[in-house]
């Protein structure tokens, strides 16, 4: 746990995977904080995307390496607890970001309130549909905590607040890739031709469903709310093929995670729970500067 | 003594079919204690199949078997072996990654709680090898590192281990040197004295005449005759086998040597030969004799570009080079018939037509596209010409009997219309009738101006067919001499001892 070369502090930031835009934003945010605070950011995700065991290996290896602190977006709310305990035992403080973990040794938990994100989506969709119609929810993946919270928030709100809405399908999983979501989407649209509203809980399911809608010639005719952003989703929002995107603030998440960790290392007290907020981007508000910053953050300054 | 010995094994009305193919159609066989019983028949007559039924590798469709008076119906090979029937199969059946010791004891390992007891196993193996006069074969050597002769001996050793009452040998000498064959015959003699019965399958009738006391002839899956040996003329046995009289074993077809087609000077290959030089003329059949391991196969492979050429010059029809790949050789009009057709000679699950034309598809190809009708027609011509027994050009070769497979491989050289034929044991494993066919074919080819290099371990056929004969000894090719200057014993002498004088 000693200072590395040049006396700079080294902080490891461990995402769930490395190939999503979402994680790129977190990386950029962390780099920004690192540059401003003079600490070295080491970015390393699990070798296999979404593999719990591989993420544990990365945490273990950083303990071996003796970094000064770890920021981690845990792939599992239980499995990561033992290695994180090991880290604390070895004197390495841990900040959790994005998803929670059943373990209270952390310095702080910096994340979106995912359940609330689902609620926002339900409210947007319910309002658009005028409180009634057939709705489909395409789930993400078995056992993913953050998207399950969004799905739960959506379902609870849509059934609680809009009794006129009929959720005709909510048991299909899009799976990890855009391609698999695309196929599920095609099947859902074929099986439920009368569907009027759709919700997808993350970027890959949203994009897969969008492609299915475009291909079926129904994009823009079905009310469609998604989660997270990418260039193509932004275009779709602009063209009216998407009616809303619940946006998190991954850049801020990355930045704040590093900041609170450094605060902790320097002996300042920090908040145990930091909500980085969620809001709904629509065609109307997408040009407002703060929404635009969420939709299309300029990361190039912080990623080489 | 043969009359007095009791019957040890009795098979009656044994039938076996593979799908539409009837391999055995009611075979009777009686083997007495302490005798060597020869089983004779053409290729595809059903000899191997009968023995596989006996050893439990195939279940018979009908028929009864008795061993020492008790009904015998083995469930599998180990069951048969447990009850005293050991078998040496026609195709080598060794596991190349295992040691000699492990191969000999395979399936009958000594063990305590599943763990091997190497000491008694080693003793048993040493004992068996000693009985074969093969104590120099190291029991810890991997079989992959052994030569073909030694491998065959390992197979024999395997049959000797344990309490066998009947030992079946399916063409055991087809890959043995004369010396090793002699050793095997001595072993057979010893087994006979111990009261065992030996069933001996071979296409070499002289050999059969020497070792066997009685014989049974199979034709088309039926028993067609039998009797005591010696005392029956070879011609009679052949007539029983083939179903007709065979006028001449070596048909005389006149051919005249012409200009030199192939000249080899100082050829050295990896690993063999060490030195080989000869000239081969149009219309000439040059025979190569030698002991197993002398390097004849290696010489042909080096000539044909399948083995690396280290030194030497090869001149074919005026063009000279060192080594060249098979493709180039074929283009130069040189073709090779490999001695191991299963491993190297044929693509078994492909059709007769494809196998016969594979090396030369050009006549049917236009811009890479094949015209299959022409291909089939070409193949049919060779099927007819060589008398290949098959249902048509598109039948997979795997469904043909051994001799017919060999003919298919030969058809390829004929189709390719090569000028120089390198034939490596072309008659190995094929019956007398087919052999005569092959000899006639060789004569006709020579008469048509082809040059033939004929490698064989069967001296009579060399003497009967060749114009000149050379002997290979430990990787060196000795000077060729006209066939009439050779005798059986002279060839053997030179093969064993090198250059005479």
């Amino acid at each position, binding site marked *: 746990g000693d200072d590395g070369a040049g006396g700079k502090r080294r902080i490891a930031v461990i995402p769930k995977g490395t*190939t*999503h*835009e979402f994680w790129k934003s977190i990386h950029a945010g962390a780099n920004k904080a690192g540059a401003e605070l003079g600490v070295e950011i080491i970015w390393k995700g699990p070798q296999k*995307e979404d593999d719990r065991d591989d993420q544990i290996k990365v945490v273990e290896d950083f303990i071996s390496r003796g970094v000064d602190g770890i920021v981690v977006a845990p792939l599992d709310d239980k499995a990561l607890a033992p290695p994180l305990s090991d880290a604390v035992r070895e004197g390495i403080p841990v900040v959790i970001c994005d998803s929670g973990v059943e373990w209270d040794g952390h310095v702080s938990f910096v994340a979106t309130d995912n359940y609330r994100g689902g609620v926002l989506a339900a409210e947007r969709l319910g309002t658009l549909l005028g409180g009634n119609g057939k709705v489909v929810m395409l789930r993400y993946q*078995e056992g993913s905590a953050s998207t399950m919270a969004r799905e739960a928030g959506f379902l609870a709100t849509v059934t609680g607040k809009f009794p006129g809405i009929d959720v005709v*399908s909510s*048991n*299909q*999983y899009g*799976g990890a*890739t*855009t*391609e698999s979501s*695309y*196929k*599920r989407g*095609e*099947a859902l649209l*074929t*099986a439920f031709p009368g569907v009027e509203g759709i919700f997808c809980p993350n970027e890959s399911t949203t*994009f897969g469903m969008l*492609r299915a809608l475009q*291909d*079926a*010639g129904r994009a823009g005719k079905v009310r469609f709310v998604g989660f997270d952003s*990418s260039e*193509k989703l932004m275009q779709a929002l602009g063209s009216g093929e998407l009616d809303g995107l619940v946006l998190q603030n991954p850049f801020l998440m990355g930045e704040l995670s590093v900041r609170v960790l450094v605060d902790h290392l320097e002996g300042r007290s920090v908040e145990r729970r930091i909500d980085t907020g969620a809001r709904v981007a629509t065609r109307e508000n997408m040009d407002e500067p703060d929404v635009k910053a969420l939709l299309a953050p300029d990361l190039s300054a912080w990623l080489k | 003594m043969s009359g007095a010995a009791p019957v040890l094994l009795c098979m009656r009305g044994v039938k076996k079919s593979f799908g539409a193919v009837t391999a055995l159609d009611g075979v009777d066989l009686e083997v007495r204690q302490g005798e060597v019983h020869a089983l004779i028949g053409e290729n595809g007559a059903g000899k191997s199949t009968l023995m596989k039924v006996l050893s439990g590798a195939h279940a018979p469709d009908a028929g009864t078997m008795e061993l020492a008076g008790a009904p015998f119906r083995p469930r599998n090979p180990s069951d048969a072996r447990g009850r005293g029937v050991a078998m040496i199969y026609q195709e080598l059946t060794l596991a190349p990654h295992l040691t000699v010791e492990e191969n000999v004891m395979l399936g009958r390992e000594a063990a305590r709680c599943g763990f091997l007891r190497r000491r008694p196993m080693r003793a048993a193996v040493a004992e068996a090898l000693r009985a074969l006069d093969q104590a120099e074969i190291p029991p810890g050597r991997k079989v992959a590192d052994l030569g073909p002769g030694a491998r065959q001996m390992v197979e024999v050793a395997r049959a000797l281990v344990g309490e066998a009452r009947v030992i079946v040998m399916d063409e055991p000498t087809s890959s043995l040197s004369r010396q090793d064959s002699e050793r095997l015959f001595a072993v057979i003699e010893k087994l006979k004295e111990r009261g065992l019965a030996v069933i001996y399958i071979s296409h070499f009738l002289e050999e059969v005449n020497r070792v066997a006391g009685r014989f049974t002839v199979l034709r088309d899956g039926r028993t067609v005759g039998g009797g005591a040996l010696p005392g029956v003329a070879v011609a009679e046995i052949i007539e029983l086998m083939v179903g007709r009289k065979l006028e001449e074993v070596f048909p005389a077809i006149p051919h005249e040597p012409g200009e030199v087609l192939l000249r080899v000077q100082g050829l050295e290959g990896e690993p063999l030969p060490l030195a080989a030089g000869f000239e081969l003329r149009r219309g000439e059949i040059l025979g190569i004799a030698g002991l197993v391991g002398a390097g004849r196969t290696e010489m042909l492979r080096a000539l*044909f570009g*399948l083995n690396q050429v280290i030194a030497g010059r090869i001149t074919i029809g005026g063009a000279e080079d060192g080594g060249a*790949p*098979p493709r180039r050789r*074929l*283009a130069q009009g040189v073709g090779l018939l490999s001695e191991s057709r299963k*491993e*190297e*000679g*044929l*693509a*078994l699950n*492909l*059709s007769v*037509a*494809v196998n016969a034309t*594979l*090396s030369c*598809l050009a006549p049917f*190809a236009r811009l*890479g*596209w*094949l015209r*299959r*009708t022409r291909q*089939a*027609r070409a193949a*049919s011509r060779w099927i007819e010409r060589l008398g290949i027994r098959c249902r*048509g*050009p*598109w*039948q997979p070769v795997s469904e043909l009997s051994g001799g017919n497979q060999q003919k298919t491989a030969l058809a*390829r050289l004929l189709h390719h219309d090569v000028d120089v034929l390198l034939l490596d044991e072309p008659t190995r494993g094929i019956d007398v009738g087919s052999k005569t066919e092959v000899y006639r074919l060789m004569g006709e080819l020579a008469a048509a101006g082809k040059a033939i290099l004929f490698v064989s371990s069967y001296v009579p056929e060399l003497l009967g067919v060749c114009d000149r004969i050379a002997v290979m000894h430990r990787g060196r090719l000795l000077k060729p001499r006209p066939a009439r200057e050779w005798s059986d014993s002279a060839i053997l002498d030179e093969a064993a001892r090198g250059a005479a004088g």
Partner: protein
Amino acid sequence: MMAAAKQTAGEARRGRRARRVLALLGPFLGLLLVVGLFSLLAPESFLSAYNFKTVATQTVIVGLGAVGMTFVIVSGGIDLSVGSVIALASVVTALLLRDGRAPVLAVLAGVCTAGLCGLVNGLLITRLRIVPFIVTLGMLGMARGFAKYLAGEQKIDAPAYWLADLMTKSPQPGWLLVAPGVWGMFLLALFMGLVLRATVLGTHAFAIGSNEDTARLCGVPVAQNKVVIYALCGLFAGLAGVMQFGRLTVGDPTTAIGKELDIIAAVVIGGGSLAGGEGSILGAMIGAFLMSFLANGCNLTGVPNYVQEIIIGAIIVAAVAVDRLRHR
């Protein structure tokens, strides 16, 4: 004499055809069974022209991959890297499009990169004499890593131009009925089926798969043919990658993970033998459609994912088991 020979040839041809038809009977019956079953379970949604269009489009990627894979499997090899190569091709195509290159150029670059991967596979297999399983397992990692490197570990958003139309279910001239990509797959499959059955290359592929030593002895340029075959498999993976890009309209370095197993399964269900020397393009297409219809039917009838996984696993085994029974 001539007449006799002709007759033999005619009979022979009929015999060959009968054998081939029989070999395809198993998978074809399987396909009918699956289609029939779901037609009963979900008549109105499954049995629609629109759904058939959907399934056809969904089959394109596995179908194209299976065409190249058939050659590899017939020649006695295997290619585990196609999934990664598909991803690499889609990334390369997307990169060039993002940089404003012409779509034709981008497609060409994607396909060629994939062909290069196949070429490297073939060269490693023939030069170093390493079994295809290992070489292509290595390439699986290398191509995937390279795709991620090129893409900067991200999806690449790029304008899709007419590439997106390749995989649309409402193709532009209405008389096309199905996506141009589907037509492309069918035409290529037809052509390559002929290549496999009626060219020197095809015959050599069968010969190598059946007995490599024999092929060598017959002067078949074994190494050369293998290189061509693996390169071909790479090219088809590249085409599949371009189609994947057309479908997603993004270049995704993480796409098509595990797709190689689907592709191999399609070929094997269609009568390909991993021991070499057996296989057909038509069979592989039937295999690919069988798996697509199965997945589609399961999705339509709302069967949970896990049931679908179990069923597909069982079908793979069953299809080959039926094939073995036929062989006895």
